[in-house]
C-alpha cells in the first residue's frame, strides 16, 4: 500500500468501489476473493466438503449418530474456550493460561463437592468462580500493571498449574454422582457439554456481533489509543474480557471433570494453543480488531472433523498435527492473498 495510491483525491477513482477491479478477473480468482472476504464462508465450505467426502467414502463409520455425538463432545470444550479467546483476540490480546485455569477450576469443583461434601451446584459455581478469578488476575496484571499479555499469561499459566497441584495433589477422584450428571447426562442423543457449548456459542455470537458493550472490543483491538480518546474505557473493558475468558475456562474445566467424574491436575495442557489455532483459523488476527465468535467455533469444528476423518481413515496421530498446521497456513494465506490483491 502506498501513500499516493490511497490518498489520490481524484473523485472519479475514489467513487469506484474497490471490487470493480475483480469483475474483470477469471473465475478462480473471483472465487478466491469471495472466500477471502468471508472466513466463515470458507470454513463452512471446507466443513461441508469434508462431511460430503467422508459420508461417501465411509458410509458406515462417518455419518452415524454415535460418531456425530463423539465429534461434538470433543469439540464442546474448545468451542466454549474459543468464544472467550475470540473476544480477547478481537480486543488485541490473548490468554495463554486458560489450560491451567481450566485444570484449577476442575480441581476446585472436585474439592468443594468430594472433600467438603457440598452439593454439585456449589461445585459448579465454585469452579466457574475460580476460573473467573484467574481471569481477574490476568486482567489486572495486563491492564493495571501494564505487562504484555504474552508474558503475563505465560507466568500465570505456570502459577495456576502449580496452584492446581497445591490444592489437590494428584487430583480428586471420584467426585460424585450428582456432579457427574453435569458432564454425562444426555438430551436428544447429545451429551450435556454439547448443550452447554451450544448455549455459550449462540449467546457469545449474538453478544459479540450485536451489542454495544462487546462492539467496543473491536475498536480497542483496531486502535487502542484512538479508542481511549473516543471515550472507551480500554483498561476496564479489557479486564472484563479476561474475566469472561477465565469464567469460560472455569466452565470448560468443571464440565471436563464432570464428564470424567474426576478432576485431574494435568487437564487442559496445551489447550491454549489449539484454541488460538482455531481462533486464527476462524478469522482472528494477532493484531486485533477482527474476527467473530462464529468463525472461531467453525475453526474448532473444522479441526475436530479433520481429526475425526483422520482417525476413521486410520491415519496416524502424528499426521493429524501436520494436517491441522497445513489447514491453518492455507486459511491465513487467503488473508495475504486478499491484502496483496486489494488496492
Amino acid at each position, binding site marked *: 500500500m502506498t501513500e*499516493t*495510491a490511497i490518498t489520490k483525491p481524484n473523485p472519479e477513482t475514489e467513487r469506484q468501489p474497490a471490487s470493480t477491479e475483480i469483475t474483470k478477473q477469471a473465475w478462480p480468482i473471483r472465487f478466491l476473493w469471495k472466500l477471502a472476504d468471508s472466513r466463515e464462508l470458507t470454513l463452512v465450505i471446507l466443513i461441508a466438503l469434508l462431511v460430503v467426502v467422508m459420508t461417501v467414502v465411509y458410509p458406515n463409520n462417518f455419518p452415524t449418530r454415535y460418531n456425530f455425538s463423539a465429534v461434538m463432545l470433543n469439540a464442546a470444550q474448545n468451542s466454549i474456550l474459543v468464544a472467550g479467546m475470540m473476544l480477547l483476540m478481537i480486543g488485541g490480546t490473548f490468554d495463554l493460561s486458560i489450560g491451567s485455569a481450566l485444570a484449577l477450576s476442575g480441581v476446585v469443583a472436585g474439592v468443594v463437592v468430594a472433600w467438603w461434601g457440598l452439593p454439585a451446584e456449589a461445585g459448579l459455581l465454585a469452579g466457574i468462580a475460580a476460573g473467573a478469578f484467574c481471569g481477574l488476575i490476568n486482567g489486572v496484571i495486563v491492564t493495571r500493571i501494564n505487562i504484555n499479555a504474552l508474558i503475563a499469561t505465560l507466568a500465570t499459566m505456570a502459577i495456576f498449574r502449580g496452584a492446581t497441584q497445591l490444592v489437590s495433589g494428584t487430583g480428586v477422584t471420584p467426585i460424585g454422582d450428582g456432579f457427574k450428571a453435569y458432564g454425562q447426562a444426555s438430551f436428544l442423543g447429545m451429551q450435556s457439554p454439547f448443550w452447554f457449548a451450544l448455549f455459550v456459542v449462540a449467546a457469545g455470537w449474538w453478544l459479540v456481533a450485536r451489542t454495544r458493550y462487546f462492539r467496543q472490543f473491536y475498536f480497542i483491538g483496531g486502535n487502542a*489509543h484512538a479508542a481511549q480518546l473516543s471515550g472507551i474505557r480500554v483498561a476496564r473493558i479489557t479486564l472484563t474480557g479476561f474475566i469472561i475468558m477465565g469464567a469460560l475456562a472455569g466452565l470448560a474445566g468443571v464440565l471436563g471433570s464432570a464428564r470424567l467424574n474426576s478432576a485431574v491436575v494435568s487437564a487442559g495442557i496445551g489447550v491454549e494453543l489449539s484454541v488460538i489455532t482455531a481462533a486464527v483459523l476462524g478469522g482472528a488476527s494477532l493484531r486485533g480488531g477482527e474476527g467473530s465468535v462464529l468463525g472461531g467455533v467453525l475453526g474448532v469444528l473444522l479441526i475436530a472433523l479433520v481429526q475425526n476423518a483422520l482417525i476413521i481413515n486410520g491415519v496416524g496421530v502424528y499426521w493429524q498435527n501436520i494436517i491441522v498446521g497445513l489447514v491453518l497456513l492455507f486459511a491465513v494465506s487467503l488473508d495475504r492473498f486478499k491484502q496483496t490483491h486489494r488496492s
Partner: protein
Amino acid sequence: MTKATTTRLKVSGCSKGFPGVQALTEVSLTVGAGEIHALLGENGAGKSTLGKIIAGVYHWDAGAIEFDGIALDRLDETSAGALGIGIVHQEGSLVGQLSIAENIFAGRQPIGRFNVVDRREMVRRTRELLNQLGVSLDPWTPVRALSTAQAQIVEIAKALSRDLKLLILDEPTSALTLTETARLFDLVRGLKASGVSIIYVSHRLSEIFELCDRVTVLKDGQVTGRRLLAETNQDELIRLMVGRDVHFARESNLAPGELVLEVNSVAAAPFVRNASFSVRRGEIVCLAGLVGSGRSEVCETIFGTRRHERGEIRLHGTRMRFEGPWDAMAAGVGMVPEDRKTAGLFLAKSLAENITIAVLSKVSPGGVISDRAIASYADRYVKELNIATPDILQLVGNLSGGNQQKVLLAKWLAPEPDLLIVDEPTRGVDVGARAEIYRLLRALRAKGFALLVVSSDLTEVLTLADRIVVMADGRTVGELPGDVADEESVLRLATQHTSIQSAGAA
C-alpha cells in the same frame, strides 16, 4: 535568483501507476545544480511519488531520468544514496528503539580498529550534525523518546550525513515550529550555496516563496505549470494547484455568548505550568505557541487524558475533575486529536463506524447495535461535511487526507459537545479541504459551539481566531484579540520565555 548553470537532474516523461491509480502521467522536471526547486501540489497530486522515484524508493513505469548527465535505467535506495541523492520522508523512516546516532548512521556506521563500530566517532559526527541544525540532543537518546519535531530533525540530519548532491525534502516543516523552520531554511540555503540541489516538496506557499528558486506544480499526477518564483504570485500558484481560486479571509464572529470553559492557573507537570484562559459559546479561541509550549497538553488536561495537580477547570461554572475522556465526553467536551492516523481514526474500520464511535450509546438502543441508526448518522455527516466517499462502508484508511480529517471532525460533531477542542485542524490537508474545514469550524461557531483550536500554522491562527491565547514554556503568556493580532505580535509573545501575564490576559 540563481541561474542554473549545469543540470543536475532531468526527469522526462515519467509515468508511474499503482493498482487502481495512475499516480504520475508523463511528468518532466529539471533541477539545476545549487537550485532549490519546489514541487507544489495538493495531497495526492503525485509530488511525494515523484520524490520517492527520484530517491529510488519506487521504480518508474515509463520515461527517463538523467542524473549529472548520465541516464539511469534503474535506481534503488542504495544506488541513489551512492549517487548523492538523499530524501527526508514525510512519514518517519526511523527505528524507535535505536538511538539518534544509530539511526543516522544505520548501515554505514564509522568503523574503527578491529572492524568494530567506532561509537565515539559516530557520536561525535552526530553531535556535529545536530549542532549544524541548531539542536542539542543527546545522540544516545532513543528516537521513540523524541517529539515529532525532534524526530523530523533527526531525519534531516540523517539525510545530511551523506555526501549530498541532491536532497529531497518531503513536507519537512509539517511538524516543525517557526524557529525550527527558520533554522532548517538557513541550513537549506547553506547547502544550496555549496552547490547541493534541493527538491522541496510542500503545499505551503509562503515557505516556497521564501525559500525556493523555481516551482513545478502538479495536479492529479500531471504538471500544470512551471514558474520562476520571482515571476509568479500565490493566487496563480493556487489556481494551478486546485484549478480555482481559494481565499482564506477572516470572518469576525457575532457577539460570543456565556462562558463555557474556564481554565484557572492549571498546572500538569511537566508540560503545563500555569495556564489560564476561557472560551465562550460561539467563539473560536486559538492556542498559539511553539511546539513544546504545552498547548496540546493543556487540551489533554481539559479532556481528561492528563491529570492536573494545581488550578481548576470549570465547565459552565462547575468545577470539573475528569478520570478519563469518558467523563469529559459526558460533560460535553470533545477533542479532535492532532494525529488522526494513530489517535483519531480506526483506519481499518468503515467510515460509518468511525463516525459513530463517540455516540455508541445513541446508535444502540437497549445496548443492541442498530445498523440503521449507524447508517443514518453516517449519511447525515457525509452530506453535511461533503465527505467524498463511494459509500459509508468504505474503510477510512482508503480515503484521502482531507476526507479523513472530515471523518474525524464528524466523529466529534456526532456527540454534539458544548466545547470542541481541535488540535491542528488542517495538518496534512490540501488547500481545498482546508477551506472547507475553516467554513465548517465557523458554521459550528455560528451554531453556538465553544471552539478551542490548537495550531502551529500562524496563518491559520490569524484566519480563524476570535481570540488568540499565546503559550510559552507551559504558561499562558498573553492574549490577543484575533482581529488586531498579526504574526509579529503573536511571535513576540510566543518567544518570550518569562511568564509575564500581559495586560489583556484573563
